[in-house]
């Protein structure tokens, strides 16, 4: 991170960085709408504190660096609304593990950024609080569900952001907004303090301007945790060092899954990916065609499993211990009305679907079957990684579309996740990096890695970024 160098050389202070961000936010965030909360007083206090520490010789990897946080990751004493009316006034009583780690590294928590409600959506149009636009074209969506994270980074309203990815929610907004977005391997990063959507799919990950930044953030937030039994004991690698250890992809085997180059994909996206792959070939990689035969079932599997898990995870929002409560003398009515008033349409739709697939008489037909097909999807990837080192594909069949285009057709919106959800189902890691533009809207390249092989996908992404100019482009606005 360039800023770290500047800070260490005393060319700028953390307060300078903060004030510069505030100034840009004042100019642009009314239109972009990335931030739901920004406690300037607290941020300034933390910046001054960081500057003081630095001048006292304290050396921490992210000292004084501000990170915007998707509004479903708990930061103590800050709101955690999940962009939902039901949690509009909720104040976090604790730090998520990733936040503890960021704070221990000296980072400053810089505001709460917008998202699709409870992470359910692919455009941030399901946000119940606030509206967010794509900095590249304000009439277009920023993607979702981590739309605020991606918009804040792309619009220079943040240095970096933490988002979450359950079916593509880091990678797709990163792709739509021209940023870098990394979904770690399931179990790489603790989910303690991440408001749960689908517990077997959720992962927290960085959304940044550069691959180097993503590597550094990943290194800091990863690792085992007493509070999350699904976190791996696998050693956390020094990703920030590792990416610079490889500057050649000679002999790298890249798999291109034929099922991911679908009919109906924007021609500009297809072309950009083709050119990116050609570029990697020119640099020495070998491209082989592979097949992930069960890809077409991914959406069906995802919308059974994720909604089932969501229906269980969102049962806690019942108006009793926290969140909004509809005051009514009858308990059951309190539950029903609280949730009716507190949840948006998409959330309700998914809870209903999830409840149905788990209900008596349907559990075997849906949930159990989906679990088995999930195993097949996972196996597709395992077998593919016997033939190649990384898998490359588009992130989305299109660039960022105009607001309102898909809001009335949920199934149409769901089908857009086709290129990202398999990765969550199989638990693999994947990164989205800018690889082109069409009509001034960014196009993302997805690099998928084997489990716990974030080091390789970061290395390949870094080499691609360094050898192309896509990362240098910025929205004119």
């Amino acid at each position, binding site marked *: 991170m360039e800023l770290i160098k500047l800070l260490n050389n005393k060319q700028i202070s953390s307060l300078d960085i903060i004030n510069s961000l505030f100034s840009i936010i004042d100019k642009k965030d009314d239109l972009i709408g990335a931030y739901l909360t920004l406690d300037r007083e607290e941020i300034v206090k933390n910046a001054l504190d960081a500057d003081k520490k630095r001048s006292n010789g304290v050396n921490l990897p992210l000292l004084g660096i501000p990170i915007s946080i998707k509004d479903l990751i708990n930061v103590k004493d800050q709101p955690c609304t999940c962009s939902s009316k039901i949690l509009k006034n909720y104040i976090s009583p604790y730090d998520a593990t990733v936040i503890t780690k960021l704070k221990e590294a000296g980072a400053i928590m810089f505001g709460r950024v917008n998202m699709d409600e409870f992470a359910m959506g692919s455009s941030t149009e399901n946000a119940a609080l606030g509206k967010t636009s794509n900095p590249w074209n304000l009439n277009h969506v920023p993607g979702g569900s981590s739309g605020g994270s991606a918009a804040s980074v792309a619009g220079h309203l943040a240095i970096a952001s933490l988002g979450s990815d359950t079916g593509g929610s880091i990678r797709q907004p990163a792709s739509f907004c021209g940023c870098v977005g990394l979904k770690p391997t399931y179990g790489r990063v603790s989910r303690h303090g991440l408001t749960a959507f689908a517990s077997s799919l959720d992962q927290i990950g960085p959304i940044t301007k550069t691959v180097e930044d993503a590597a550094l953030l990943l290194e800091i937030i990863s690792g085992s945790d007493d509070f999350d039994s699904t976190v791996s004991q696998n050693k956390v690698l020094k990703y920030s060092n590792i990416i610079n250890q490889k500057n050649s992809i000679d002999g790298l085997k890249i798999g291109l899954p034929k099922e991911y180059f679908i009919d109906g994909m924007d021609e500009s996206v297809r072309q950009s990916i083709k050119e990116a792959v050609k570029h990697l070939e020119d640099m020495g990689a070998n491209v082989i065609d592979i097949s992930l035969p069960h890809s077409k079932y991914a959406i069906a599997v995802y919308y059974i499993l994720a909604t089932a898990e969501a229906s269980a995870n969102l049962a806690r929002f019942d108006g009793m211990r926290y969140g909004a409560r509809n005051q009514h003398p009858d308990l059951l009515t309190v539950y029903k009305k609280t949730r009716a008033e507190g949840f948006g349409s998409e959330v309700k739709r998914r809870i209903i679907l999830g*409840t149905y697939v788990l209900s008596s008489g349907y559990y075997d037909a849906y949930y159990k079957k989906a679990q088995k097909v999930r195993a097949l999807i996972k196996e597709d990837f395992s077998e593919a990684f016997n033939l190649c080192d990384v898998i490359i594909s588009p992130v989305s069949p299109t660039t960022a579309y105009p607001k309102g285009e898909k809001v009335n057709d949920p199934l149409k919106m769901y089908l857009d996740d086709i290129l990202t959800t398999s990765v969550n189902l199989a638990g693999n890691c994947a990164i989205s990096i800018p690889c082109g533009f069409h009509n001034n809207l960014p196009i993302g390249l997805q690099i998928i890695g084997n489990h716990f092989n974030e080091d390789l996908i970061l290395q390949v992404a870094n080499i691609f970024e360094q050898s192309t100019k896509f990362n240098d482009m910025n929205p004119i606005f």
Partner: protein
Amino acid sequence: MNKNKQNINVDHISQLAAIELSDEEKKMFQSQLENILSYIDQLNEINISDIHDEDKIKLSLNELRNDDPKKSISQEYVQKNAPEFNNNHISVPKILD
């Protein structure tokens, strides 16, 4: 499993999910969910009878940590977020008559 189209009873499921839906919502969700379930039907194409999910999708789990009592969140924070709080207790609607 084409009987799916007729089978989802949004009214019944909304009772199970404890969400009160308006008549308009029920109608909208009924048709949207039938559509989605139709799409999901394609899973019937696959023969999955010989897959044992327990083997293949086992997530790696840490050992459980020791059951040591630790400090939890303070009453102050519970109070901050409780819809109603009296006398060191969260007040909730009565459960029994």
